[in-house]
């Protein structure tokens, strides 16, 4: 057997994952993606084998100066390939030694580009044919300490005609830090390299350091503030399954509802930001103000505008009442009136459309090659939506989700995608609040993770596929926690989108993707 087949949120014993020789591991995983757009890699990561074979506690990985101890052990790699048709995830593993040089997956399929760079950075694994082997986030516990964020090896162009433009890490607006290096021919962008890592907070290691569920949930809530609901759902779904707990319908209901509300709020805010970047003041103000009633509703429901504190494993502090349902219905009615009025104006305004159409194009072939997920895949005709392919919570039970797909891959496609997804989410919410399940508190829920397990949780956040993976050790504590924000794949799509565009179009390209720095840097 080359892999074990699991479904979303299914915990399996770590030992049940087949281990292959590296060559076979490579052939099997790369082979599964060949000519199969319905398959993509949802996670690929490694860990020091010594951690589990010794059975010792996780703290032993670090010395008193909080540096990772030198390990003579090998690295175990785990690769997870999702199949959207069979709704299964195929998991396999291999063990490698950091001092040996390996063939890269990336040379055969670019889906794996970031994962292998990440493992090169963390463990010092060398690949002989990786096209772009650079650190991704300069994590504090990286293998090569000599590689620092200040001496990042940017791609350069030795030319009298071309010039380089550097931006960041601190950008002009109130946004997160990253360094962007453009190579331009006059106004035209030839190449963009995006260097991230400034936001690296050591989150994945903190998941192992912290022991209390309240701490872990708080960590999940603070991975990316614009996707609080998405990441927290990924964590609680994972945790409950890991503990063998099956939540009732009312918990599924409140999570699904919060996720769709977050989608509406951020999409509306992004439409405002795109309007701002083309100098369309009316659109900027109206969409900007329309975000407010949605996030204020989250506050009415859970006391926080970004839904922090709302989602908890095994319970909720904020049962969704009929009164809240009626209130939400009236908010959505008012929202829709103003949203539709603004949208009908915006989408027929020639001066706006001329900036959006055919700007920042990424083709179907490119998104498939990069392996983008979520909106950044659906904008170019690639159907990737976890809500329909690997359903979670109410999806697949309450209603069947039909992903919104666009085909042009330009800024306009991304804006239309947002508009349509806002309408779709409003439709879902209306259906949901017509039948609010009674909340019944389950007393004395004990959430104790099973030992030596592997689990993977997928959620379709507003930006796309969120993947959390966990492995427990033989005491039932977290031995590994691996988070993947959709941005991890999608930053490369932005770099492709801006090629051959004017540098002044960079802001709308950037805003139309709205990728996460902190979700990437972790």
């Amino acid at each position, binding site marked *: 057997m080359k892999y074990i087949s699991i479904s979303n949120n299914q915990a399996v014993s770590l030992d049940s994952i087949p281990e292959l020789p590296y060559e076979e591991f490579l052939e099997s995983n790369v082979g599964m993606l060949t000519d199969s757009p319905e398959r993509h890699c949802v996670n690929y990561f490694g860990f020091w084998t010594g951690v589990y074979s010794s059975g010792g506690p996780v703290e032993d990985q670090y010395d008193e100066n909080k540096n990772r101890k030198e390990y003579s052990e090998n690295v175990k790699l785990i690769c997870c390939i999702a199949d959207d048709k069979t709704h299964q995830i195929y998991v396999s593993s291999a063990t490698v030694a950091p001092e040996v040089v390996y063939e890269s997956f990336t040379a055969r399929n670019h889906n794996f580009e970031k994962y292998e760079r990440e493992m090169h950075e963390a463990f010092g694994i060398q690949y002989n044919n990786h096209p772009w082997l650079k650190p991704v986030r300069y994590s504090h516990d990286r293998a090569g300490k000599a590689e620092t964020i200040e001496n990042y090896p940017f791609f350069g162009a030795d030319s009298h005609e071309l010039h380089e433009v550097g931006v960041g890490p601190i950008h002009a607006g109130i946004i997160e830090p990253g360094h962007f290096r453009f190579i331009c021919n006059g106004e035209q962008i030839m190449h963009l390299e995006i260097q991230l890592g400034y936001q690296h907070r050591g989150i994945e290691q903190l998941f192992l350091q912290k022991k209390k569920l309240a701490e872990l949930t708080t960590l999940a809530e603070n991975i990316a503030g614009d996707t609080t609901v998405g990441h927290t759902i990924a964590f609680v779904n994972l945790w409950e399954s890991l503990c063998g707990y099956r939540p009732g319908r009312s918990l599924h209901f409140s999570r699904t509802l919060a996720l769709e509300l977050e989608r509406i709020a951020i999409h509306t805010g992004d439409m405002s930001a795109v309007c701002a970047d083309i100098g369309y003041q009316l659109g900027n103000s109206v969409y900007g*103000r329309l975000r407010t009633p949605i996030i204020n509703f989250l506050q009415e429901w859970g006391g926080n505008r970004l839904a922090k504190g709302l989602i908890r494993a095994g319970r909720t502090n904020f049962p969704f009442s009929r009164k809240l349902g009626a209130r939400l219905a009236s908010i959505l009615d008012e929202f829709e009136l103003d949203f539709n009025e603004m949208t009908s104006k915006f989408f027929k305004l020639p001066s706006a459309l001329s900036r959006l159409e055919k700007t920042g194009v990424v083709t179907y072939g490119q998104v498939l090659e990069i392996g983008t997920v979520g909106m950044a895949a659906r904008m170019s005709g690639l159907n990737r939506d976890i809500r329909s392919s690997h359903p979670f919570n109410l999806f697949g039970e309450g209603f069947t989700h039909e992903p919104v797909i666009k085909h042009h891959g330009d800024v306009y496609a991304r804006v239309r995608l947002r508009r349509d997804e806002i309408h779709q989410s409003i439709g879902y919410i209306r259906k949901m609040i017509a039948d609010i399940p009674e909340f019944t508190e389950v007393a004395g829920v004990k959430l104790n993770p099973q030992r030596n397990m592997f689990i993977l949780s997928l959620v379709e956040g507003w930006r796309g596929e969120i993947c959390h993976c966990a492995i427990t050790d033989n005491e039932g504590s977290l031995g590994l926690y691996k988070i993947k924000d959709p941005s991890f794949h999608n930053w490369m799509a932005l770099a492709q989108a801006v090629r051959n565009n004017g540098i002044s179009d960079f802001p709308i390209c950037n805003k139309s993707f709205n990728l996460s720095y902190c979700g990437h840097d972790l």
Partner: protein
Amino acid sequence: MFENIKIWWHQGKQYIPDVTNAKLPGIFRGRPVITRSGVDEAALVELCPTGAITGNPVCIDLGKCTFCGECAFRFPEKISFTSDYKLSANVRERLVVKEGDDKGIVVEPSKVRKGVRSLFGQSLKLRQVSAGGDNSCELELNACNNVQFDMSRFGIDFVASPRHADGVVITGPITANMAGPLEICYNAVPDPKIVILVGTDAISGGIFADSPALDRDFLTKYPVDLYVPGNPAHPLTFINGVLDMLKKQ
């Protein structure tokens, strides 16, 4: 043209006329109130994910609190969160709420640094630096200038260049990778300048406080003029804090 006017008309009046007395909709977890009733203090202290709660007497440090509200749910007779959003202070100790206290958190006029009010009272330009922030405080700082909160009307603005700024606003726990750029940015701001910390992560490190990936030396080197708690800080918390510091009411 008429369509534009129609849209504009349908938006109605969005701005909050009085940002110092606005009421927030629904529930909001703002300043906590701690009663003197006896509870299992050890359990209460143990409950808090960021160690914001200490016992004997029970105190909550809003600089560490993530406002998750778990303490109020488990010990409703002991702790409740009010909707008071005026949480900013210029003295760090002022953020600690003790049991039996039910007075607002204020900016102490005598502790406002000399020159801040006379120089920046009419106009304050700020450069924001996200130093490991999770983008939630950044979203709310952006919201400070939307049509509802409209902070610009008080002469307070965010600017692109530190050379144009009177101070820096820091969000996030200050990662090691951002420590250098933050200091460069701070040094590029002309003197005299102020520092404002926004959000739990910036004030204490929050849930990330013991992460080895942080470098918070900046805060030991330079004075902090205002602490704005919250996770994220609400726009009204920020606006009122800055207005209090500048004495603009």
